[in-house]
C-alpha cells in the first residue's frame, strides 16, 4: 500500500517538475516548486513507513518548514526586489528607485 502511494506521489512530483520547467510566469514556477516540496514531505513520510524508520517524520517536518520559509523568501524577493524591508501593500523598492 505504501509502495503504491509512493509511486503515485513520484508521478505527481514529475508533473510538478514539468510545470516548474514549462511554467510561463514566475508565479507558476513558485507554485510548482512549493507543491513539489509538499510532495517531497509526503514522500519522506511514506518512505519512513516503507523502510520502518519513523524517524523520517522529523526530517519531513523539517523539510515542510524549510519549504515554507523558502517560498516566502522567493515571493518576497520577486515582489519587492530585495529581502530587507517591511512587507507592505505598495511596492517600496520601485518607489525608492524612481
Amino acid at each position: 500500500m505504501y509502495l503504491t502511494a509512493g509511486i503515485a506521489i513520484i508521478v505527481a512530483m514529475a508533473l510538478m517538475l514539468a510545470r516548474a520547467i514549462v511554467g510561463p510566469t514566475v508565479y507558476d514556477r513558485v507554485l510548482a516548486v512549493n507543491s513539489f516540496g509538499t510532495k517531497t514531505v509526503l514522500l519522506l513520510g511514506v518512505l519512513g513507513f516503507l523502510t520502518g524508520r519513523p524517524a523520517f517524520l522529523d526530517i519531513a517536518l523539517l523539510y515542510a518548514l524549510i519549504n515554507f520559509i523558502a517560498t516566502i523568501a522567493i515571493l518576497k524577493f520577486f515582489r519587492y526586489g530585495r529581502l530587507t524591508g517591511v512587507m507592505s501593500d505598495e511596492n517600496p523598492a520601485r518607489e525608492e528607485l524612481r
Partner: protein
Amino acid sequence: MGHLILRVTIKTLFAPIILFALYVQFHGDYGPGGGFQAGVILASAFILHALGFGLDRCQRVIPPSWLPVGMALGVLIYAGTGVYTLLFGGNFLDYDVIQPDSHHHAGQHIGIIAVELGVGLAVAATMLQIYYAFAGREPEPMDDSW
C-alpha cells in the same frame, strides 16, 4: 502593514520552530539531527521573522555585532572540550576521561552534548550572519531607472 495572514502565521510558527530546534539539538544522540541541523533550524526561525517583519526588528533582537562572538564562542566550546580531555590525559575529544569511573559511558554523553552545543551555536550564528549579509545589501538599480 499588509499581509496580515502571513504575519500571524509567522508569529504562530516562531516559538514551535525554536522548540523543534531544541528537540533536534538534544535528541541528536538517538534520532536524526545534531548540532548543525539544530543551528540551522534556530537561525531559520529568526530568518523567517526577519522576512516577515523586516530586518531592522530582527537586528534589534540579535545585533549583528553579537554574531562573530557567537561563532567564535561555538568553536571555543568545541575545541575547549577537546583540550579539556587532553588536560586529563586522554586524546583530543576523548570523552571517556570526563567521567572515567562510569560503566555507562556517561562521559561520552556529556562530551557529545557539550560539543553539539558548540556546533549549534556556531552554525546558528554563521547562518544568521550569512542572511544579514545577504539581505542587508542595497538592491541593484533597475535598468529603466537611470
